[in-house]
Each structure stands twice: as structure tokens, then as C-alpha cells.
């Protein structure tokens, strides 16, 4: 059974000896892993979702069964460095390097108050030339042998706050400022169009997402989620299924989102990601027992404590435990609960993959 077949079985709820694996890492860890294998380290791809789709050869070398693809910056609007050292992308979001990360520091719609402010903003086109070149090439290269995950995270809420600023957006949502709906419609349209293209290109999974959770609970009430997001997410999911009813849809949300999970089931979600183990209540056994007949699971390996701070043996134990619980009856893609972070020892990453291989043996 090759990796592709393993993924297809998993997402059709057929149990295999071990589940398929997907992995993503931050660039600093990619460098150390490349050094370990004695291979050159690739440059990260120019995409809002670069961390999920870069270093895929390295991930396959480690033992990943899936490859991530997504939209990239188009040919005419690559991400650029400004004379002041800051970085600006095609959306006009300005980032600055702080420590290990490029963080958003200036927001192109920080001034937004009215629908006109949104209409005036030159929103990027999903079908701009060059946007899917990397995805096309990657699918051509790996599509037959590996599972293809079309990444579409930051689907509505997150891209919107990258444009407006987080605190402003959350308060303006509470005040129901008129621009908010117009903004969410524009962002959802961009994601829907990009996602449709990824479905057409043959992705096995479309991996949408927005972080609706904090460590302790949801960012917003279910009422606010229903007001702004549930209808737009449902519409987006339907657009993807209309093109390919067989495509499976995953949703990423960091943190604890227990109260929102039933809403995701209602709008047609297939796979929940990432099951952040230390977030309140996101217990794999409980989730499998409670929602295992309605949802499949993707993730589950802790990047907040276990992978950076645990021993290889603890990691092996955890992988076996997750496979036993979440892999039962199929419907599980094993993955770290986010990009594996720079403070993680190489041997811990290897231990995660080794543990999966050992199950196979």
C-alpha cells in the first residue's frame, strides 16, 4: 500500500495498521533536519500559508504520507522587503521579524469603518497568473503516490484580522459595524475561489481553517460564530463538494473549541484538526467517543510541550496511544498539532516518525 492509498483508506474510514502521517515544520527546524539528512534546505514558498506547504521533500524523507499545496503569491505581486526592513505581501499586510517569526505589525484595513472602505480596497484575485504554479507542479510530481492536502487555512476570520487588526475586528464584530460583513464576504470569496481551484486540481482534502479557540475556550460565543461564520463556511464547503462530492473537508482551529464542534458538523465538516492536546477539553478519547461517527480527526501530537520538551520514548508512547484511540476504525491522519517549533530536538521529530513506522512493522 503506498502513501496515497493509505490516505484514501483513512478518509474513507477504513482501518489500516497505521494511519497516514502529515507534518509541517518551521524554517529553523527545516534547516536542522536538512543538515541532519545532508540535503540542501529549500527556500520557504511565498504564500500566506507557506509554513504548511514548504519543505515537502524533507517531510516525505521523514516519512510523511501527504503533501501540502496551496495558493502562492502571484507572479506580479511577490512578497517584498521594504527599505525599512519590514516585509509586505500582496494583501498589503506588513510583517516584521521578531525573534524567530515574521509577525503582522501593520494592517491595510486598520482604518475600515464603512462598506465603501472595503470596496475601495484592491483585493487580490484568486486566479491571478502564477498563483497555482507550485500546486500544479507538486500535484504532478507527487499526486499519484502521496495524499494531496489543499491548504486553505485563514479562510475567513484570520485573513480578515490580518487585514484589520485582531482587537479592532473582534470589537467591530461585537458592534456589528457594517463593514464587517462586507469584509468577510470578500475574504470568503477569495478562499472559495482558491479552494475550488484546488479541488479541481485533484486535492484529496481541502484543509480550511481559522483559529476560533484559545487555550481555555472559544474566542467568541456560539451566537457570534453563527452570526458571522457558520453560513459563510457552509456555503464554502458546498461549493467544494459541488465540484467533487468525494473531496473531504478539514477544518483547523487551534485551541479549545468544544462548543463550536457541533456547528461544524451541521455545516458539513468531515475532518477536525488539530486536536490540540493541552487545550481545555480537547481530549482525543472523548472526541472520538462523542463525535467519531460524524467526524474524522487530523493532528493530535502536542507541539506545546511533548515534542519540544518530551523524551523520544514519551513521544513514541504518545504516538502509539493516539493511533490506538483515534485510528480505531480509520478516519485518522496523524500529525503534529501545528508546525513543529524551532525548539524541538531533531531526535524528537525522528521519534514521532519512527513510532509510526514501528506500528507498520
Amino acid at each position, binding site marked *: 500500500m503506498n502513501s496515497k492509498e493509505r490516505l484514501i483508506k483513512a478518509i474513507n474510514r477504513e482501518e489500516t495498521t497505521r494511519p497516514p502521517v502529515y507534518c509541517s515544520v518551521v524554517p529553523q527546524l527545516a534547516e536542522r533536519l536538512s543538515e541532519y539528512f545532508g540535503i540542501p534546505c529549500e527556500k520557504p514558498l511565498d504564500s500566506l500559508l507557506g509554513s504548511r506547504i514548504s519543505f515537502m521533500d524533507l517531510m516525505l524523507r521523514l516519512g510523511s504520507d501527504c503533501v501540502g499545496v496551496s495558493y502562492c503569491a502571484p507572479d506580479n505581486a511577490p512578497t517584498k522587503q521594504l527599505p525599512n526592513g519590514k516585509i509586505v505581501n500582496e494583501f498589503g499586510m506588513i510583517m516584521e521579524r521578531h525573534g*524567530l517569526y515574521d509577525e503582522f505589525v501593520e494592517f491595510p484595513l486598520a482604518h475600515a469603518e464603512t462598506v465603501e472602505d472595503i470596496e475601495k480596497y484592491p483585493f487580490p484575485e484568486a486566479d491571478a497568473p502564477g498563483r497555482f504554479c507550485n500546486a500544479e507542479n507538486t500535484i504532478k510530481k507527487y499526486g499519484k503516490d502521496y495524499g494531496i492536502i489543499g491548504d486553505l487555512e485563514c479562510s475567513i476570520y484570520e485573513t480578515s484580522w490580518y487585514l484589520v487588526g*485582531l*482587537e479592532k475586528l473582534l470589537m467591530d464584530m461585537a458592534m456589528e459595524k457594517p463593514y464587517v460583513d462586507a469584509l468577510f464576504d470578500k475574504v470568503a470569496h477569495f478562499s472559495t475561489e482558491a479552494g475550488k481551484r484546488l479541488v479541481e486540481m485533484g486535492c484529496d482534502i481541502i484543509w480550511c481553517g481559522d483559529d476560533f479557540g484559545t487555550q481555555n475556550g472559544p*474566542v467568541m460565543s456560539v451566537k457570534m460564530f453563527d452570526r458571522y461564520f457558520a453560513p459563510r463556511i457552509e456555503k464554502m464547503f458546498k461549493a467544494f463538494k459541488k465540484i467533487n462530492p468525494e473531496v473531504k473537508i478539514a477544518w483547523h482551529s487551534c485551541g479549545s473549541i468544544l462548543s463550536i464542534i457541533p456547528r461544524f458538523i451541521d455545516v458539513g465538516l468531515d475532518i477536525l484538526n488539530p486536536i490540540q492536546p*493541552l487545550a481545555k477539553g480537547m481530549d482525543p478519547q472523548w472526541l472520538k467517543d462523542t463525535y467519531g461517527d460524524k467526524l474524522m480527526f487530523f493532528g493530535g501530537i502536542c*507541539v*506545546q510541550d511533548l515534542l519540544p520538551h518530551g523524551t523520544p520514548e514519551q513521544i513514541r508512547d504518545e504516538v502509539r496511544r493516539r493511533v490506538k484511540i483515534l485510528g480505531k476504525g480509520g478516519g485518522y491522519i496523524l500529525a503534529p498539532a501545528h508546525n513543529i517549533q524551532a*525548539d524541538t530536538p531533531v531526535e524528537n521529530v525522528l521519534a514521532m516518525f519512527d513510532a509510526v513506522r514501528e506500528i507498520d512493522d
Partner: protein
Amino acid sequence: MEKLDDLYQAILTGNLEQSVSVTKQAIEEKIKPDEIINNHMIKAMEEIGRRFEVGEAFVPELLMSARAMKGALELLKPLMQGNASLSLGKVVIGTVKGDLHDIGKNLVASMLEGCGFEVVNLGTDVSDEKFVAAVKENNAQIVCMSALLTTTMTYMKSVIEALNTAGIREKVKVMVGGAPITEQFAEQIGADGYSSNANSAVSKAKELVGA
């Protein structure tokens, strides 16, 4: 003043305009700032904090209440100058070096301010020198540090060491928080307190200063 009940409601429901107008009227009517703050503003912030902790209110509601509270407090601050009895203590707060995540830290800062502490918010990406300088300059009783990332949380220990080196560790209580932070981690690095959310941060801060 009966109208002051409206201040409680305005802050609780996050209504900035109402919060400002009721406070203005109360000032005109010569109601003492401590009466306005202790009997209305703090009570409203305590209630929204409670609702946040038990999952009846969420981040947007807490941000809105904090905004309404700050609108009232801005008007009252000039009238409180020199009146140390109104403050539970001075807090210096920041997200540690290398980390730009600040929504959690800002919620803690707002809750502390809304519940009677004087808060000096140093923002994000704050170095150990900056924490030490701010503690000295403001004669702070508490320093609060936040981190979202496992790669930055270890910097909290460097800040505590810097406070030691500067000879002021014994004069200031250290509180830490943020998604990957645990009680155990707080103990390991020698912090005095840990809180998992903005509301319990206030009780912990009060406990640390004996308020």
C-alpha cells in the same frame, strides 16, 4: 447617584458612549472618584471577568467592557492624582522578547486596571533591560510577563535573573501567563504567581500584594 448604576451597566455591556457620559455627569455632580471607581467601575469589571472565566462572556465582550472602562477612567485619572489610596498597587506588564502576541496580555492588563491596579503596559517584544528599568522607574509591586510561544516562554527566566542581578527581585512579585505556561513552569523559573486567564490574574495579583 442613581445614574451611576448606568455606569455599571455601560461597562458590563461594553457601551463606551454611555460610560463616558455617565462619568462626566457624575464628575459634574462632584461625586468622588473613589465612589465611582470602587462602587461601580470595579464591580462591573469584576462581573465581566467572572462571566469570562466561566464561559458566559468571550474575548469580544471583554474587549468592549475594557474599552468602556478606559473611557471612564481617562476622565477620572486627572482627579485622582496623588491619591495613592485609590490604587491597589503598580503593575508592569509586557509580552517577552521575541514574542508579539498581545491579546491575552492586554486582557490581563485591562482587568488589572479595571479592578484597581495602576498598570504600565510595556507592549510586546520586551527585553529584560526594559522590564528591569520599568520596575525601577515605576517602583512597581508586580511584574507580569506573557508568552504564547514555547520558543519565547524560556525568556521569562532571563527576566527573573535580570531582576535578581539588578538587586530588585525581592521588591517585586513576578506573575507569568500565556498559552503554553503552566503552574509547574512558573514554579520552575521562580515566579511568584501564575494565572491561566485574565480574571484569575486579578485575584492572584491581589493575593500577592495582600490587597
